[in-house]
């Protein structure tokens, strides 16, 4: 057998030749086969050495080829989803080609295989009632790599197993994605004493499941106790956030008590932090409330808001003044017993009003205070001050005294109006009570517009279709305010407004003083023109000596202004005559009238000279008290005298005689009269 194989098999030369041929063509698998065959046929030592090198090369090339083939197969298998087979092929390829991407593919395939196995396992145990079984499956799946959904399931599982600490830690890394998980997270947090985290988690609930309000109520006391000690930003804000989600009708009395407590704590926190803007929604409602502490809260917050934003000033004025005029609140400042000295309530009140006044002044200084706000501040401060000292009978309403603005905002005007109207024995100044009533009546808004200097709006805001004493009073009061405002601006057309206010001026003579003061104001003459007309018109209806004197004075100023502007003397003269009719001792009117007369005399003297009538001029000078007219007369006579001396002799005597007669009439002892006389005597000599 061996003999026959030896005869049939290729010779060494043939094997060498084929091997070399395949090697040269790059067909390494066949070249390898032939070289191996040649090696078995006993080549020489040199041949064997050469063949060994080539065989080594062939082996390497064949391995590369096999690796490439394995990769091709692996990819096809992976595409078909045959991951275990694909993994084998990649591992085979890796044995010959150590390339990173092959390693990555192998790792990915292994992960995928683990996941698939884990998912299959999770699916298999999903309905298992034993949480431990499920937990094992989740652990296995997570071992294959992170997966938030499985981690959340694991956390839920941990809650079932009462392993709350681990659950809370896990939930912290994978926030719950469903309301059920959130609830379990809350349960775990509550179990480990993290009540605030529990409530915060509940805030993320998309829907409020039935009964949640009771569950939150269970947590509230514990969360509040935790909030007391925890070093956390705005802990009560967390509690308030969840508590505020529920409708009021769903909350129990206990829930409300805790919510009030939380609101109170939160207000204190925000106040200390200076976060006043966030406070208004947390304040208890004030409407119709006689709760002094609530009033103080609103007042303080409004004041702080007004310090930062002008928009809140009007509200702050109403609230602050009402709180500051509350005796109970001021007396409470000493109740803690630390200050043993008696506190002077009025002095504190004055200082607190000053605080607000300084705020208003600050805005005014910056030029940001509107006329309206300035008016409201003056009115609110004045009215509550008047109310606070008004002697009243009976028990006043709980909110008394308050500012008109406060009453209007909180619907308290009617109650105060009724109380003021019920005063059977009005104070000495009934007019004052009438005014106070007006500010709390249905005309309150109109009165506030009036104070704000918005007269047209004030008149428009008066109730229509009603006509009673109070409304008539309001109308005249607004008319007077309107008239005074216009007069203070130096407007001309104000007579009508003052006449509209006549009934008030007749009923309340003290209001005349405001007009009288204005008549003596230090203003230019034009300022008084409208006022003079108005006061003159009022004088026909008002019999008050001071008012008449002021009227005559202001009319005198008007006449002076007219004269300075070069107006007709006759018109000014008539005005002054009327002024003297109103008040005969009016100094300004009398002296101005005299001045007019002198001026008129001077004009007449000039006219007489122009008409070559020195005797007429002399007679006019004699009737004048103005020394200027006399001087003027002799200046003209001197000129004429010089002219006569230079004239022809034929006319000299007659002319000289004429001026002598005139000069002697005015002053026979005047040096010029004497010179004329001497010259006349010379002319009369033959």
């Amino acid at each position, binding site marked *: 057998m061996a003999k026959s194989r030896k005869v049939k098999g290729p010779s060494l030369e043939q094997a060498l030749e084929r091997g070399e041929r395949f090697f040269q063509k790059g067909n390494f698998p066949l070249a390898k086969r032939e070289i191996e065959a040649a090696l078995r046929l006993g080549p020489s030592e040199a041949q064997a050495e050469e063949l060994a090198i080539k065989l080594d090369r062939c082996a390497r090339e064949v391995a590369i080829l096999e690796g490439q083939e394995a990769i091709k197969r692996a990819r096809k298998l992976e595409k078909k989803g045959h991951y275990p087979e694909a993994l084998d092929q990649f591992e085979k390829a890796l044995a010959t080609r150590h390339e990173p991407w092959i390693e990555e593919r192998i790792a990915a395939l292994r992960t995928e295989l683990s996941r698939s196995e884990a998912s299959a396992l999770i699916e298999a145990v999903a309905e298992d009632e034993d949480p431990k079984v499920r937990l094992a499956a989740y652990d296995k799946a997570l071992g294959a790599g992170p997966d938030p959904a499985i981690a959340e399931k694991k956390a839920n599982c941990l809650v079932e197993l009462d392993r709350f600490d681990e659950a809370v830690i896990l939930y912290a890394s994978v926030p719950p994605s469903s309301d059920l998980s959130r609830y379990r997270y809350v*349960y775990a947090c509550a179990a480990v*004493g993290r009540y605030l985290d529990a409530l915060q988690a509940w805030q993320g609930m998309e829907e409020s499941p039935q009964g949640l309000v009771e569950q939150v109520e269970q947590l509230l*006391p514990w969360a509040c106790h935790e909030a007391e000690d925890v070093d956390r930003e705005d802990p009560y804000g967390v509690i308030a956030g969840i508590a505020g989600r529920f409708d009021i009708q769903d909350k129990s009395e206990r829930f409300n008590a805790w919510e009030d*407590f939380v609101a109170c704590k939160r207000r204190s926190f925000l106040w200390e932090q200076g976060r006043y803007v966030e406070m208004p929604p947390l304040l208890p409602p004030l409407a119709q409330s006689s709760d002094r502490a609530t009033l103080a809260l609103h007042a*303080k917050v409004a004041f702080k808001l007004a310090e930062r934003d002008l928009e809140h000033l009007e509200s702050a004025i109403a609230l602050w003044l009402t709180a500051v005029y509350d005796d109970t609140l001021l007396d409470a*400042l000493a109740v*803690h017993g630390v200050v043993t000295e008696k*506190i002077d309530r009025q002095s504190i009140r004055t200082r607190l009003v000053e605080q607000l006044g300084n705020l208003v002044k600050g805005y005014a200084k910056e030029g940001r205070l509107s006329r309206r706000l300035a008016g409201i501040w003056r009115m609110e401060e004045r009215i509550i001050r008047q109310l606070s000292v008004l002697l009243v009978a009976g028990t006043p309403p709980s909110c008394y005294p308050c500012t008109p603005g406060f009453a209007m905002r909180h619907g308290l005007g009617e109650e105060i109006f009724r109380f003021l109207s019920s005063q059977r024995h009005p104070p000495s100044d009934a007019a004052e009570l009438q005014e106070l009533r007006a500010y709390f009546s249905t005309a309150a808004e109109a009165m506030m517009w009036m104070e704000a200097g918005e007269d047209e709006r004030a008149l428009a805001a008066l109730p229509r279709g009603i006509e009673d004493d109070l409304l008539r009073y309001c109308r005249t009061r607004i008319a007077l305010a309107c008239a005074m405002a216009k007069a203070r601006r130096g407007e001309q057309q104000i007579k009508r407004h003052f006449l509209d206010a006549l009934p008030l001026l007749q009923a309340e003579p003290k209001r005349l003083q405001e007009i009288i003061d204005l008549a003596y104001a230090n203003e230019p003459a034009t300022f008084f023109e409208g006022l003079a007309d108005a006061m003159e018109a009022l004088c026909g209806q008002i019999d008050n000596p001071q008012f008449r004197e002021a009227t005559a004075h202001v009319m005198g100023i008007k006449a002076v202004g007219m004269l300075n502007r070069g107006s007709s003397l006759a018109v000014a003269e008539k005005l002054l005559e009327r002024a003297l009719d109103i008040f005969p001792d009016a100094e300004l009117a009398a002296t101005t009238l005299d001045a007019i007369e002198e001026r008129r005399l001077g004009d007449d003297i000039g006219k007489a000279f122009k008409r070559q009538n020195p005797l007429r001029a002399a007679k006019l000078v004699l009737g004048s008290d103005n020394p200027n007219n006399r001087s003027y007369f002799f200046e003209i006579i001197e000129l004429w005298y010089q002219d006569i001396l230079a004239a022809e002799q034929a006319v000299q005597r007659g002319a000289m005689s004429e001026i002598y007669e005139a000069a002697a009439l005015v002053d026979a002892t005047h040096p010029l009269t004497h010179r004329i006389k001497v010259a006349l005597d010379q002319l009369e000599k033959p």
Partner: protein
Amino acid sequence: MSNPFAILSVDRTATKRDILVRVAAAMREGRYETRVIAEAQKTLFDPGARAVAEFEYVLGDCGRSSSLFPESIEDGKGPMLRRLC
């Protein structure tokens, strides 16, 4: 005027002794100028000025004592939450 209660970290019930202790502490802390601390002390020692400052700066407790909880809780017990499975 600045808030004297905040400058000296005292509440409205602070006695003169409490205030003096806090004045010394505030000086050591150096958070405020000496002048400011002295001004705060002066305000709190003046009954009128203190009352004005209290009205302006102390929010108050809306008619309740803010340190009192509406109800107490038992140590060692937690809230009774319903367990969802």
